[in-house]
């Protein structure tokens, strides 16, 4: 059963408690000078798995409003980072979380390129860097606990539950209240995400990438990428065939040489002798050259 989180952005008051919870539970450092975890300059970083970003915008013409947006991994239903990762360092779990296993990671950073939401971050300032990203508090989810950020929210901005039920709930909320934008972000984006958002201001104005394709991204590559094993198997067969062909050709060549040996021993012997003489000569030259060098 795939779990998810419904984020009602109208309720967020910007306390940033979720960012604290994330850092506390995941033991991440505060790097406010490099990348603040909340405020207008908030940005996701290797130590910031979730942020609260403040937006000042105008609603209904002239009234200025403040909105706070929580960013973290959206945990796609069909994550492109997982499909891009050949080391199985990123795995989509049954409960919906896209989990990262640093022990498997080879550091290729394909996931960073694959993600349409620019979520995975690289530890650029570490000697042995790995990728970092929100893993939806996989350890807590396994114990049937809500992710840390969800459980600490004082205004219940986020609700943790079954994704399908949350989607129905979100549809009811935006249908019954004219305040909301008639769109659930994450319902279809990138083939659907585990974290879904509802808002009273247009999503493109509060930093959401609204140009994401609706199809699951791995579809675009899976058509030919799924042929990889077959291609590999065929390639092995072809190369093995070449090997045997080449080997056989050499055997036939040597056999023909041995057959002709009896016929013209002298001829063959002459050839061999001359060859050996050549190799000895070249060795002498090599050794002499080495001795000369040493003397110098």
């Amino acid at each position, binding site marked *: 059963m795939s779990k998810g989180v419904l984020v009602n952005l109208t309720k967020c*008051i910007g306390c940033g408690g979720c960012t604290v919870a994330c850092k506390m*539970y995941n033991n991440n450092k505060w790097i406010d000078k490099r990348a603040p975890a909340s405020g207008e300059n908030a940005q996701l970083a290797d130590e910031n798995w979730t942020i609260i970003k403040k937006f*000042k915008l105008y609603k209904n013409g002239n009234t200025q409003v403040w909105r706070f947006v929580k960013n973290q991994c959206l945990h796609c239903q069909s994550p492109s980072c997982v499909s891009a990762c050949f080391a199985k360092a990123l795995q989509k779990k049954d409960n919906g979380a896209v989990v990262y296993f*640093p022990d498997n990671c080879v550091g290729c950073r394909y996931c960073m390129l694959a993600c349409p939401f620019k979520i995975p971050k690289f530890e650029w300032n570490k000697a042995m860097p790995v990728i970092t*990203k929100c893993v939806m508090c996989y350890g807590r989810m396994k114990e049937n606990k809500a992710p840390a950020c969800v459980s*600490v929210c004082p205004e219940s901005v986020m609700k943790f539950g079954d994704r399908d039920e949350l989607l129905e709930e979100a549809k009811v909320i935006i249908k019954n209240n004219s305040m909301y934008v008639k769109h659930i972000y994450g319902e279809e984006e990138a083939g659907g995400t585990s974290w879904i958002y509802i808002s009273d201001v247009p999503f493109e104005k509060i930093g959401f990438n609204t140009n994401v394709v609706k199809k699951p991204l791995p579809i675009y590559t899976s058509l030919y990428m799924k042929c990889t094993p077959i291609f590999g198997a065929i390639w092995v067969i072809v190369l093995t065939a070449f090997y045997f062909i080449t080997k056989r050709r050499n055997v036939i060549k040597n056999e023909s040489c041995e057959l002709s040996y009896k016929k013209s021993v002298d001829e063959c012997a002459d050839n061999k002798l001359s060859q050996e003489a050549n190799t000895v000569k070249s060795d002498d030259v090599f050794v002499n050259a080495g001795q000369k060098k040493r003397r110098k």
Partner: protein
Amino acid sequence: MISESSSNSNDKNSNLSEPTKIDGGANDDSDTFNGGADSSELSRRIFLKLAGVGIAAGVAGGCDSTFGGLKPSGGEGWLPAQYNVSGDFPVQVRGRIPIDPQNPSITRDNQKCILCGQCVEVCSKVEAVMHNYELPIIDDIPCICCGQCTLWCPTGAITEVDDSDLLMQAIENPDLHVVVQTAPSTRVALGEEFGLSVGTNVEAYQVSALKQLGFDKIFDTNFSADLTIMEEGTELVKRVKGEKKAPLPQLTSCCPGWVKYCEYFYPDLVPNLSSAKSPMTMMGAMIKTYYAKKSNIDPKKIFSVAIMPCTAKKFEAIRPEMNHSGIKNNDPSIRDIDLVLTTRELAKLIKRKGLDFLNLPPAKYDSLLSEYSGAGVIFGATGGVMEAAVRTAYHLLAGDPPKFLFNLEPVRGLAGVKEAKLNIPNVGGIKIAVVSGMHNTHKVLERVRENKSDWHFIEFMACPGGCISGGGQPRSAVPPSDSVRTARINALYSADEKATIRLSYENHEIKAIYKDYLGEPNGELAHELLHTHYGDRSKNLTAKNKKGSNKEK
């Protein structure tokens, strides 16, 4: 030699790259190993085979973690126990309050926050701010700057905005004449920071410490508390008599936290607020007009500091309308108060300067703006403003106040809402109420809103117990206990009892300032310098109670 070493490395490579071969040759391996042991000599072949086995075992071990115990990233930290519940059980005490980075009063160190949820408890349940407005928010993070959260925060993550460096810069600036005033409540709490028992009155040591810190003049806000009583009491009498066209009940306006709360949640009752400014800003205005004139100092060169038990005073000082002395001096950029420091900041500063607080020579306030009556000193306790105002109002309406007004028990104590009725000759019954802790305002103000009340005068204090337990006072128990509040309150009341003058209008310096400068209470100049008007912040938030009362209508 060179060719030999190269062949060696080739052998190694071939072994390393084909660890699978090792398993196949396991039998040979044991044979050769025994042979090797007999000859007690490790051949190259055996060595390489052993190395291969070791590497294969290592790879197999790694594979084990791949398929069995692979560890996902994250989850190495901790969360407070209340969050570690499974399922959908709601967490009762959770999260933290929002604090705008621009907030002039309070700030928070994120690294110290442990999400205990205590700030949310005090903000929503004691001060009735958080959770008392509708979401979404508009363009403000509602905060009345009271600073109670700084007292409830167990890790000290939430603190006042520390302005002590600005103060030291001002003191070290030879061009500036730095004047300081101290609130009634700081003297009964500052001693706690230096190991004295709760409720010790350290007025004389506080003045001495301020002198050592380098202030040029030290005045007492108690004096301007008396001034406030003169203005506010006169205003009350005028409202009661119908001479001033303003609605009753009159609501006090000395608590900046309450004033901001009123502007947020009860904008329709702002006209009820007394137009008299708070003692701090009155003193600020007097310093840069009356004192500047008397001592012939350019008001631009006066740097006016206030030591307050309150974080909201930092906000009040930067309110745009608090520049009456500037307007009077034809330079609106002159502020009544330039800087506010809390009691805690003063204590920190004294410690930073290495002053031996307990062994300082006792000192006295500078004259001109420092004499105070017992009525002024009890401003720091809940009900104190009311008691002080009633003494003067009685005098204005019916002559000398009777004895019970010097110990007005019904308005003393820590109860959130207190009521009393006084019979004043020639006027009749005057009903008063005292409220402390903003969650108690609803009980009183909803009745006022519906015109069901018959109160004439209501005192409001944002902090439970009044200024003595203000957001800038020394941290005591977490959350602050009533025993600490009571001890501090008792210290103020005993100072009142000991005072030779207990009525604001008998204060000699008050008499002098009206005679020499202000004219009469609520007079023209008094209005210019000591009165103000307040605004409407209801467009910055959608109050929950407002909606409720609309529905009732």
